[in-house]
């Protein structure tokens, strides 16, 4: 199995939102996350951003928020 470095792992964690990763990619990513605490933190940051964008989108598309 290919060993990812942090740069490659980061790229896949972001691409995961736009396309389905192959099982090879998923396995290699999981392996990297298992040994790299820095990338696990990045994963949490990416998840927070994903949730933030979802909230932002629903506010923008509806009447709820009227912030100027």
């Amino acid at each position, binding site marked *: 199995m290919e060993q990812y470095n942090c740069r490659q792992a980061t*790229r896949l964690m*972001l691409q995961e939102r*736009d396309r389905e990763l192959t099982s090879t990619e998923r396995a290699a990513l999981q392996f990297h996350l298992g040994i790299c605490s820095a990338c696990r933190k990045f994963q949490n940051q990416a998840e927070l951003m994903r949730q933030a964008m979802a909230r932002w*989108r629903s506010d923008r598309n509806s009447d709820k928020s*009227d912030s100027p």
Partner: protein
Amino acid sequence: MSAFAAQVESLRPQLLRYARSQLRNDAWAEDAVSETLLAALERPQAFAGQSQLKTWLVGILKHKVIDQLRRHTRECALLSDDDETDVDELLFKADGHWHEAPQEWGSPEQTLGQRQFFEVLELCMERLPQTQGRVFMMREWLELGTDEICKELSITSTNLWVLLHRARLRLRDCLQQGWFSGRPVA
């Protein structure tokens, strides 16, 4: 002016702000909003009984914004020097390890409950380089698929991946600086 027209008109500034954030061009944004208001005023009956006024208008606006993107395909996909900056190179060493490990951001619930966070988020989105900002918003606001974005802007999927990747890393960096480190976004 009828009450309906006045109500529609009162939402113009907000719609304009939304259109600008996607199109990154004042003239195109004005056009998209004018077309939206016109469409709304020409068929008020279409609104009758439907959701809320703003929700309805934003729905129309999204279509008009896509029309504008189509009309200006070539200009929309031009890359600025800022768009071209290799963000990866700033974040990672030559061997692919982080220069500076990402920090702990805490629980999403805690952050997302704060209105001010979303003000910083919007500021950070505005700050993205033009073309990165456009593709990011096409994905996140217009919710277009990646193949649709490539088609509308006539760019390759490789280009799109690079742009989205850089936009997200920049957004993360801006949030780190402007929110999580407690420094105001300068």
